[in-house]
């Protein structure tokens, strides 16, 4: 009975979302307060219904109700309890349910925290969020029902994809969804502003923390996914430019641009139209990401089943949502207040450059991701666009971005003298170059990359810390917004170190080893002590024992594993890792080569932790910024 109740809840949620969109939007258009007042209760009801449906699906997994097809497809009796919870979002139907639940959470949060906004704005924002909910719930109800029955019920289910049976993967999808579904809030706000025909600095101030929080969660989600790929896939890589990674990276890039342009528009009134367009673009790219992941249009390691009817549904939804918002934008954006003017040497110009570079990077990723499809459509055959393309173009676009970071906070709004700012930063430039040269001489290999990484990071970190110090000295304190910016920019510096030094100085070697044999890599010696078998809850593992020594002293005993899962015979790698601040020692087992020998891959991943530490700092920066009290101050009477 319970799964049927779940279906009823979904159907009710669909009706409520219709109510939440149509009545408030019409009410706002006609000035009908009673209709507009429906928005808040509808958003709360939506959250209640979605939570109920989600709880019921979770219960079906915990209680192992294999009469529910989705449960039978994605779990079995051997599945450890913790993964029965995360299996709820382990495949298509359930992850849509999570998507809808997260949207309901954001909508309810907007309803709760929007007391300071005029009713008509709240009605429109919640109305637009309701429209998004209509689309996504309809997608679920009509093409991907998570509660569909499988009768007669099988005695045993299949299994959750073993790739997903990992603690990192429990949190990866929810964080991502909180992130990119969260971009629906600035999107809904942009729609409200366009419907209203003007953009008010107070509403924009209210929107900024939402964008920052969404972006911070997206950053965490991507970082976690990257870290997971690193230790789970056994290649020692942390980013693969896989289509699905790209799909999630595009909203991140444009979201980062949005965060910056929102700040300009809020403070100076400039770029209002651009900010609205970015808000639309960010959410559109989130929808595009959902489409690319869910439709099976592109081949990817994240492959999901290709079902054209599903792809068609979500494409229609995507085209309608994005098309309608762009149409509204075209009709209204030309009439927005232009805001204060500015000179070429000003913070506005720098932020515009930041936006252009991030947007170009996104366009480049979009082109690379869709190019195989385009080539296919034009009859050029099936093509794989790989890291050589992405790596090069990304590098070219990110170098100027990194070079500009320290200028941003130090240059004044409206106009400044370039020579003055240059004079402030000159010592830091000198320091960065000196450190870069030092790195060039010290680096055992990859000299240019190492020098560039160290110099770039020192430049960003030095300039950013100098700004914070100057502020502290002059006014005694930094606002949360400034702390957030400082943290995020320091995150960029740390990330730059990680990416370039990891790329320049990592070592790896793949060898065939028998028990007792050893291999030398850099300063490390790896002694392969053999393999034994271990029984896991639902897998059988070949567990290697690899002793790691440096200068003859034992550092660690690592245990890389090959796990064969009972359900489908799928084999998964678990790397053995000795983490360290300046580098990881990483051991992964390949195939057994017969005669007791195994293919063993040993890596020294220099500074690889800095990559995720940088992402963590950026996310923290976003969250700290969002906590600025200025965003929550009760509105003054006069629009800013």
């Amino acid at each position, binding site marked *: 009975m319970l799964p049927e109740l779940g279906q009823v809840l979904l159907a009710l949620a669909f009706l409520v979302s219709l109510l939440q969109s149509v009545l408030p939007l019409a009410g706002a*258009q006609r000035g009908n307060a009673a209709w507009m007042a429906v928005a808040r209760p509808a958003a709360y009801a939506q959250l209640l219904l979605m939570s109920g449906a989600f709880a019921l699906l979770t219960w079906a997994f915990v209680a192992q109700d294999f009469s529910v097809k989705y449960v039978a497809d994605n779990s079995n009796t051997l599945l450890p309890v913790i993964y029965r919870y995360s299996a709820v979002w382990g495949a298509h139907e359930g992850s849509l349910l999570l998507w809808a639940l997260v949207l309901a959470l954001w909508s309810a949060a907007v309803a709760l925290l929007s007391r300071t906004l005029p009713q008509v704005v709240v009605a429109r924002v919640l109305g637009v969020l309701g429209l998004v909910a209509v689309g996504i719930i309809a997608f679920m109800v009509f093409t991907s029902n998570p509660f569909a029955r499988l009768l007669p019920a099988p005695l045993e289910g299949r299994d959750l994809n073993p790739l997903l049976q990992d603690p990192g993967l429990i949190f990866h999808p929810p964080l991502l969804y909180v992130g990119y579904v969260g971009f629906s809030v600035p999107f809904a706000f942009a729609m409200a502003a366009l*419907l209203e*025909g*003007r953009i008010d600095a107070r509403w924009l101030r209210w929107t900024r923390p939402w964008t920052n929080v969404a972006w911070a969660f997206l950053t965490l989600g991507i970082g976690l996914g990257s870290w997971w790929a690193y230790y789970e896939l056994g290649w020692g890589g942390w980013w*693969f430019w*896989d289509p699905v990674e790209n799909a999630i990276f595009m909203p991140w890039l444009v979201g980062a641009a949005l965060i910056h342009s929102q700040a300009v528009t809020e403070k100076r009134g400039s770029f209002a*139209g651009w900010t609205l367009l970015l808000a639309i673009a960010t959410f559109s790219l989130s929808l595009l990401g959902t*489409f690319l992941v869910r*439709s*099976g*249009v*592109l*081949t*990817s*390691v994240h492959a999901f089943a*290709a*079902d*054209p009817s599903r*792809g*068609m549904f979500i*494409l229609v939804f*995507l*085209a309608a949502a*994005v*098309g309608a918002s*762009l149409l*509204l934008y*075209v*009709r209204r*954006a*030309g*009439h*927005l207040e*232009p805001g204060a003017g500015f000179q070429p040497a000003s913070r506005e110009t720098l932020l515009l450059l930041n936006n252009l570079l991030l947007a170009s990077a996104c366009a480049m990723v979009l082109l690379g991701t*869709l190019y*195989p*499809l*385009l*080539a*296919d*459509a034009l*009859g*050029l*055959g*099936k*093509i*794989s*666009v*790989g*890291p*050589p393309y992405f790596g090069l173009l990304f590098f070219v676009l990110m170098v100027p971005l990194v070079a500009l970071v320290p200028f941003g906070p130090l240059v004044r709004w409206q106009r400044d003298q370039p020579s003055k700012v240059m004079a402030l930063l000159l010592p830091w430039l000198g320091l960065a170059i000196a450190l870069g040269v030092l790195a060039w001489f010290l680096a055992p290999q990859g000299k240019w990359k190492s020098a560039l990484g160290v110099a770039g990071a020192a430049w960003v970190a030095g300039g950013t810390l100098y700004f914070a110090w100057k502020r502290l000295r002059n006014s005694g304190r930094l606002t949360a917004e400034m702390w957030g910016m400082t943290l995020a920019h320091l995150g960029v510096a740390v990330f730059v170190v990680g990416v370039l030094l990891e790329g320049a100085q990592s070592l*790896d070697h*793949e060898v065939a080893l028998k028990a007792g044999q050893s291999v030398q890599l850099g300063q490390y010696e790896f002694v392969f002590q053999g393999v034994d078998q271990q029984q896991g809850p639902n897998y059988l593992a070949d567990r290697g024992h690899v002793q790691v020594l440096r200068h003859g002293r034992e550092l660690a005993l690592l245990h890389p594993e090959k796990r064969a899962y009972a359900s489908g015979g799928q084999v998964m790698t678990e790397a053995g890792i000795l983490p360290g601040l300046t580098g990881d020692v990483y051991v992964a087992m*390949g195939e057994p080569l017969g005669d007791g020998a195994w*293919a063993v*891959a040993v890596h020294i991943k220099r500074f690889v932790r800095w990559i995720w530490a940088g992402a963590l700092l950026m996310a923290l920066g976003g969250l700290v910024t969002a906590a600025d009290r200025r965003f929550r101050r009760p509105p003054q009477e006069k629009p800013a």
Partner: protein
Amino acid sequence: MTDPHHQAPRKPQGLPAIAVAMGALFFAGLVGLMLYGVVRSGDADRDVLPSALIGKPAPDFVLPLLHYPSVEVGAAQLRGAPYVLNVWGSWCVECRVEHPVLTAFAQTKRVRVVGYNWKDEPEDALRWLERYGNPFFVVLADKEGRYALDWGVAGAPETFLVDGSGIVRWKHTGPLTEQVVQERLLPALEQVEQAR
């Protein structure tokens, strides 16, 4: 949707028509492309157009071997018997997909399978072969992509069948599947073998 009493003064910097038209075109193109993708996603056998090289002599080249960089091999040395040329790179995801199929085909030893390692770092390529197995007779390394243009290579993976006199007889773009091997490569190979 529009309010006729809307009082905002018209600003001269209203969106330029050309920008709107370009945007609309881009959007329509994107949706069209997605639509094509969706329609094709259900189609397991995504066919491709034949190469312009078919029936023409294979382009001339001289390339070092991946495993012995000091040894260079040219088109002339491969002549005399048919060979299959497979363009791949360690950076190419779909090459990994086709690798088991290619390996199984190569193991029949019916024809030489020559690897054409394209735009790849030799260390990466060697590691890739070590990890996934090396089915190739020899592997040519075209690190800079010098001759790939002559072959009309647009991406990896691509596979060519060249007959004993050096004429390109068949080409496949994209990963080899069991179906492609059975229904297209083997019949093409049979024709080449009979012609000899």
